[in-house]
Structures are given as structure tokens and as C-alpha cells.
């Protein structure tokens, strides 16, 4: 509130956590992103937060995105938490997440009721078969994209295949696969000082 003369769009000096947006502005911006981000939130987040509002720069954005991806939780809400925190602390995180979830939530609330009433109509079942098949293709595309980006060695493909087999073939719970194979994979990538690979079996 007691900020001195307005200094708009100054490049963020690292370390200062002075809020540059009001709580209401943060909520509104995430509400807009939550209502318009059809087909995946990441490009909309970047466009609205980096390009339009300049609340963060590209480097910060990429860094936050990589944190989002290695934590449990969806990119959309993990990004909202981080950006909200940067702009307005704990309350900023809270209003950003609410804004992000509200439009899609209201839409799916209505869609769920509509589906329950009319889901058995021949038109619905015909359309839904196509929709579900397209959704499978969409997830596969996500898997391919992520693999290209973050699978480095052949060993990584073994960890990936082991996870798929554990869940699909041996009916492990997702939690068990995540913990057991996750620990193996993390230990495999243990912090090395040099690039020398010694057999540790």
C-alpha cells in the first residue's frame, strides 16, 4: 500500500519479494487463464504472466515450470502456487489456485450433471467414443513430448518400461510403483563428482 511513486515494469531485482500486483489483480489474471486455457495451460500461463503482465521473466518461468513438473500435482496449480507466492505471498498462492480452478470446475460441474442426464443418448455415446479415443492419442503425444525432453539414457527407458509393466501387468498400486522404482531410479542418478561410472552392484 505504502509504495512510493509508481515505478512500472521495473526488471525484477533478484531477492526482492515486494508484491507488484494486488491480490485482486492476481486472482483476476488467474481467473482469466483458468477460463481461456483450452488444450493445456502452459502456453497461456507464459503469454499472460510473462508477455502481457511481465510479472516474471522467461528464466523464472522455465525454472518454475521445471519445479512444477518434478513435484506431484498438476502444472496448472503448481504454477499458480509459485507465481501467487512470488507476487503476493501465501494469500497470493491461495487466490491464484482458486482463480485457476474455478471456471473449469464450474464447467465440469454442469457437464457432469448434463452427462448424467443425457449420457445414454445415442448421439452422446457416439460422440463420446470419438472423444475418448482422441484423448488417448493426446496422452500418447504428451508421453512422446516428455520422453524427447527428459529421457537421456537407455537406462531411463528401462525405468519407464518397468513402471508401465509394474502397473499394467503386475497390478502394482501407483504408489508402490512410484516409491519402489522411483527409489531405484533416484539412486541410479546419485550425485557424482566426476563422470566416471563405477559398477556399484
Amino acid at each position, binding site marked *: 500500500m505504502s509504495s512510493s511513486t509508481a515505478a512500472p515494469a521495473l526488471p525484477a531485482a533478484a531477492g526482492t519479494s515486494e508484491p507488484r500486483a494486488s491480490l485482486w489483480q492476481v486472482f483476476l489474471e488467474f481467473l482469466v487463464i*483458468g477460463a481461456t486455457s*483450452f*488444450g493445456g495451460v502452459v502456453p497461456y500461463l507464459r503469454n499472460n504472466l510473462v508477455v502481457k503482465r511481465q510479472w516474471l521473466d522467461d528464466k523464472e518461468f522455465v525454472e518454475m515450470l521445471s519445479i512444477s*513438473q*518434478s*513435484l*506431484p*500435482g*498438476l502444472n*496448472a*496449480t503448481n504454477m499458480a*502456487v509459485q507465481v501467487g507466492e*512470488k507476487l503476493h505471498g501465501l494469500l497470493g498462492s491461495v487466490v491464484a489456485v482458486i482463480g*485457476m*480452478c474455478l*471456471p*473449469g*470446475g464450474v464447467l*465440469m460441474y454442469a*457437464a457432469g450433471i448434463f*452427462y448424467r442426464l443425457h*449420457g445414454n443418448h445415442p*448421439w452422446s455415446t*457416439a*460422440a*463420446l467414443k*470419438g*472423444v*475418448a*479415443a*482422441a*484423448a*488417448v*492419442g*493426446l496422452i*500418447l*503425444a504428451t*508421453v*512422446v513430448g*516428455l520422453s524427447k525432453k527428459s*529421457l*537421456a539414457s537407455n537406462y531411463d527407458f528401462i*525405468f*519407464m518400461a518397468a*513402471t*508401465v509393466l*509394474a*502397473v*499394467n501387468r503386475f497390478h502394482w498400486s*501407483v*504408489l508402490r*510403483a*512410484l516409491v519402489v522404482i*522411483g527409489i531405484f*531410479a*533416484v*539412486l541410479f*542418478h*546419485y*550425485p557424482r563428482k566426476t563422470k566416471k561410472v563405477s559398477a556399484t552392484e
Partner: protein
Amino acid sequence: MNQIPALIRVFSYLSLLTVGGGMAAFPEMKVLTVEVHKWLTFSQLIHLYSVGQMAPGPNMMMIVSIGQWAGGLPGAIVTVIAFFGPTALLAYIVTKTWKKLQKWPWRNSIEKGLAPVSIGLLLAGCFSMAKGAITGLETATIAVVTLLILLHYKINPALLVVGGAVVGLLTYLPK
């Protein structure tokens, strides 16, 4: 029967499994919502998930529909809080401690190690869903064509899901 406590339990647990994306939790979501609690059928789960891909915002907002079916408006609200609360809290804590974590040598190991496992979980979720969604040559074709288009062209994925609906109507509508 009051389903609210069960909704909170199930969705806060599923929340922590969404490493890499919402789809990672799908096999577990199927077991808990379809087989254990019988809030909906497998094909309804597939349909809601798929319809959810056309909605803006986080791509798992279809959980709202499950919460609504099981417990009305209160059910929907507690489901959202249970599903996004735990991971949001974790993200908040990590954000606050990020500077310290940056110097921790294992941080990189965790990032590198979890990447293949989380991609594996997404793929496992995809296969689990495909068992119900890919029922013949027509649906397999729709999935493969969607995949190929997404790999080769920059197009909004939501549009392709709408396209899937149109192809579904043309293919399966009784004449």
C-alpha cells in the same frame, strides 16, 4: 449414505500420485472410484476424463463431476479441495525452501530419477484408459491420427478432442 469422508480420503490420496500429470493417478482412480466405491462405471470415468480435456484450466477438473455425483455440491467442493490441497501445500513449501534445495546435490538426482518413472506412470495410465476407450479399428484410428497430428503440427489439442467427437458422431450414429 454420506460419501464426503470417502471422497476426501480417496482424492487426497490420488492427489499425491499425480507425478508428471493427472493421468499418472488414473489406474488408481479407476480402482478406487469404480471398483471400491462404485461412484461411477469405468466407461463413465473414461467419458468424464475425455470430456474434461475440452475444459479450460487444470486438465483433471473432471473430478468435480465425480464429487458431484457422489455427494452433490458439498461433494464437489470437498473433492476439489482434497485433490488440489495436498499438492498445492507441498508446492508452497518447496517454493519457500527452493533456495536451500538448489544447493542440495540430491535434488538433481531426484529430478532425473523421477522423470522416467513419471513418464512411465503417464503411459501406464494411458494404457489403462485405452483398454476401455479403444474398442476397435475405428477408435484405434482416431487415437493414432490424433497422435500423429499432434506430433507433426502445432495445433490446439482441445480442437482435436472436439474433432474426435465429430468423427465419433459420423462413425457411430445409428442411421
